[in-house]
């Protein structure tokens, strides 16, 4: 009963606060709509150059691309296509190199780093097609099945790529701010001290906040998916329950990070700067808007361990690549590990009393 009352009160606090309402629900939608208007429909057809070795794989690649809207495959000689790439005529060059028998095929990608967004979109598209081919070949060797699986990459237009990233990003921002901001405010106002005088268990008090944020994360995911489907023709291939499970895990992980942040931030004002310092770089590094495989190796390694990277990739693999929970198990385990690290650190750092209040009393005592 206590838990339920706390959950209701927390939800009211979130929903009655205009700025938190904006950040939870309007902000992700603004992202979706803006990106959709800029990159979504017809705007910017992607030109992808291809050097073929006439291998079976290259043929499948061609066939798959024929199905994709929003991208054109231009075949030619490598040297000429490289010139086109430098001129900006094409956004990406895919070169299939003949391999010795029994060796995996070499596929080389060339792109212009100045064209981050277009080349990033093109790369995700190509990677999706290649993944699809690999998966199809590994799962069902029969060639006639191949095409069916490859069709799944059809939806990997930019909005489809973007949608899971926007969900991951929204969960991160909402859970970080939505957990840390109220807690630090409650501490500064002395509400936490007052709560400490009651017999309520810490686990119940904080658990209600975590569950409340998870509910908000579900609402965000639902709104973003609905917008993607209705406005931008995004096709959801994966199972929604699986995506919901990833959302739950992601929300709990980000709430834990929010709890840690509430322990680190001494004052309400520092919540903003610390949360932004964490969330902003993570948003870009975690492949929310584009793949970062153009970045230096060390930066990619950093990106590879970030919590949001795993949340985004698990959501993306499930929602638009149609994978299952078992396929994204490494990402899920990494998220659980992060959550545990955050929780333990938060338990160590969390304070019921603001240092300011203690200082005042010391003076007043």
């Amino acid at each position, binding site marked *: *009963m*206590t838990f339920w*009352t*706390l959950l209701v*009160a927390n939800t*009211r*606090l979130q929903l*009655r*606060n205009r700025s938190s309402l904006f950040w939870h629900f309007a902000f992700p939608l603004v992202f979706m709509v803006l990106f959709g208007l800029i990159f979504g429909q017809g705007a910017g057809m992607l030109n992808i150059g291809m050097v073929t070795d006439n291998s079976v794989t290259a043929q499948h690649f061609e066939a798959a691309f024929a199905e994709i809207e929003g991208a054109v495959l231009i075949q030619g000689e490598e040297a000429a296509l490289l010139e086109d790439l430098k001129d900006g005529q094409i956004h990406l060059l895919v070169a299939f190199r003949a391999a010795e028998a029994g060796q995996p095929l070499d596929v080389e990608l060339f792109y212009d780093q100045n064209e981050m967004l277009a080349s990033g979109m093109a790369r995700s598209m190509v990677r999706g097609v290649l993944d699809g081919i690999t998966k199809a070949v590994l799962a069902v060797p029969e060639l006639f099945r191949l095409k069916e699986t490859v069709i799944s990459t059809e939806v990997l237009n930019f909005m489809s790529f973007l949608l899971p990233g926007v969900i991951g990003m929204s969960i991160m921002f909402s859970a970080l701010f939505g957990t840390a901001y109220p807690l630090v405010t*409650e501490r500064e*106002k*002395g*509400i936490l*001290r*007052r*709560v*400490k*005088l*009651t*017999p*309520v268990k810490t686990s119940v*008090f904080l658990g209600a906040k975590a569950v409340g944020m998870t509910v908000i994360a579900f609402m965000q995911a639902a709104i973003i998916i609905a917008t993607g489907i209705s406005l931008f023709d995004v096709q959801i291939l994966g199972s929604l329950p699986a995506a919901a499970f990833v959302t739950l895990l992601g929300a709990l992980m980000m709430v834990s990070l929010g709890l840690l942040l509430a322990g680190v931030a001494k004052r309400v004002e520092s919540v903003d700067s610390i949360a932004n310092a964490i969330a902003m770089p993570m948003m870009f590094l975690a492949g929310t808007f584009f793949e970062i495989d153009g970045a230096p190796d060390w930066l990619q390694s950093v990106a590879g361990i970030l919590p949001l990277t795993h949340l985004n990739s698990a959501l993306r693999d499930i929602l638009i690549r149609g994978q299952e929970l078992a396929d994204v198990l490494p990402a899920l385990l990494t998220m659980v590990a992060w959550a545990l690290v955050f929780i333990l650190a938060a338990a160590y750092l969390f304070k019921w009393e603001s240092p300011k209040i203690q200082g005042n*009393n*010391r*003076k*007043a*005592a």
Partner: protein
Amino acid sequence: MSVIVDVQELTKRYGGFLAVNKVSFAIEQGEIFGFLGPNGAGKTTCLEMMEGLRKPDGGKVLLKDISVWPEPAKVKNLIGVQLQSTSFYEELTVKEILVLFASLYGRKLSGRELDNLLSMAGLEEKRNAYTNSLSGGQKQRLAIITALVNEPEIIFLDEPTTGLDPQARRRSWEIIRELQGKGKTIILTTHYMEEAENLCERVAIIDQGKIVAIDQPQELIDQLGQKAKISFASSRPLASLFLAELGAEAGQVNSGEGQIVFTVDPAQTIGALLEKAKQEGIVIKNLHVSSPSLDDVFLSLTGKELRD
């Protein structure tokens, strides 16, 4: 009447600073007991050690024979607390705050309980108002009734009327007296003499972490042995010798521009004062006679005046 609060040699140190120094006292059930002292005297620290919020460095606190330390959880259902300068969730209504805090004690307020609390605080009309729309007095009264949601036997109120205008202050006193009428024991801190004198049955005057006097307000005043206080301003300072001739028993204190004389026989002293002044050509202005108050007790015990 039985002792419900027993505090023995309670001590708190911050570094080398003794915030509370071996404080001992006992409170009987149904009493309104006040801590009177200036800011920084140790009132709040003392209270918070009794509530289980701040761990003492020495001594004991027994509430209904249960030791608060080392397990404050044992007394949580016994006590209700209004902390100093409490604020609330701004986006919740008065009713929602009460329901929430009751639930933190694992309780569900019935409609009647809720009505009773609201009417006690005069907040019936505000039940669905957000807390940021309340006046200072209404907020303080909400803080007091929030301390009652678990039906506590002992109620701690830390400066329940600080910053309130006299009318709002009296309204809070009514609530506190009503609680006493219900058999509750109330322990409050204040730095208003008037509040201690009018509201508290017994007062502990606390200064620099120590209790310097503890008794009923009237007793403390009577112990001064003075019947009246005469204050005035004079065109020239009066010599102490001169004052002695007035028959004033206690000495003279310069308070700002004026002078204060304590006396057991005000009529005789005033007569002599005016006579002498006429002879010496001294002009006496703003002559004022009053009974001694707790202020004077405080002044004589600590050498300080209480200020807000």
